[in-house]
């Protein structure tokens, strides 16, 4: 299955890319496992926020084919 991953702000700088599509075996995968795959096994920075299909969630969330996952730092709008 294919998962679209997007990075914003300092996370985009850290990863060196704004987005990518990752192919994963199986029907579902957790966000935490997805992060390990795209970061070569690094720990997710503690303050990182996660969204799946534009809704906030956490690393335990399960994603499926076609989902969009985003990793980004604390928000600073307004």
């Amino acid at each position, binding site marked *: 299955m294919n998962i679209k991953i*997007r990075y*914003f*702000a300092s996370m985009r700088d850290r990863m060196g890319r704004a987005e990518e599509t990752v192919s994963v075996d199986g029907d579902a995968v957790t966000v935490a496992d997805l992060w390990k795959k795209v970061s070569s096994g690094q720990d997710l920075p503690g303050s990182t926020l996660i*969204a799946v299909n534009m809704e906030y969630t956490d690393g335990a969330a399960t994603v499926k084919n076609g989902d969009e996952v985003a990793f980004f730092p604390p*928000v*600073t*709008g*307004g």
Partner: protein
Amino acid sequence: MNAKTGITVLVQEESFDPCQLTAAHQATLDASKCGGIVTFVGTMRDYNDGHSVSSMYLDHYPGMTERHIEKVCQEAAEKWEVIDILVAHRYGEIKPSDAIVLVAVWSAHRANAFDACRFVINYLKERAPFWKRESTPAGERWVEHNTKDPAAEASAAAVSAAGIRRTG
């Protein structure tokens, strides 16, 4: 939710005049039902955290940003009797003194308008996916956190000190 509450969310790269935007929006409403309008305008400072700031770039998450601002407005409309809410927020390049965000709330009574406006701007700053990158003499840097609302913190501290339990 108050089904009669109008909610308008504008997320745009173009600069805006908050007074003109508020006046133009009010022209679309039946303002005779309103007893008050509370507006908050967030503008860009030319300094932050001890450094001068010459400009700023606002990153956002297209789609999610609009969705979460609308959600914040819907929550405000559920909590308070308000007639209409307008939120405008910039992204892209911002210059000092530019308006970054406008929250305008129309209500029959001032208390609801004040409370809803404060709720929307505070929650927007905590949840809406925007990120500020500042240009300083030392180079560019991402802003790592928003400043807290002093009134909200003082209120929370007073409640805690008094041993008061919030009921709503």
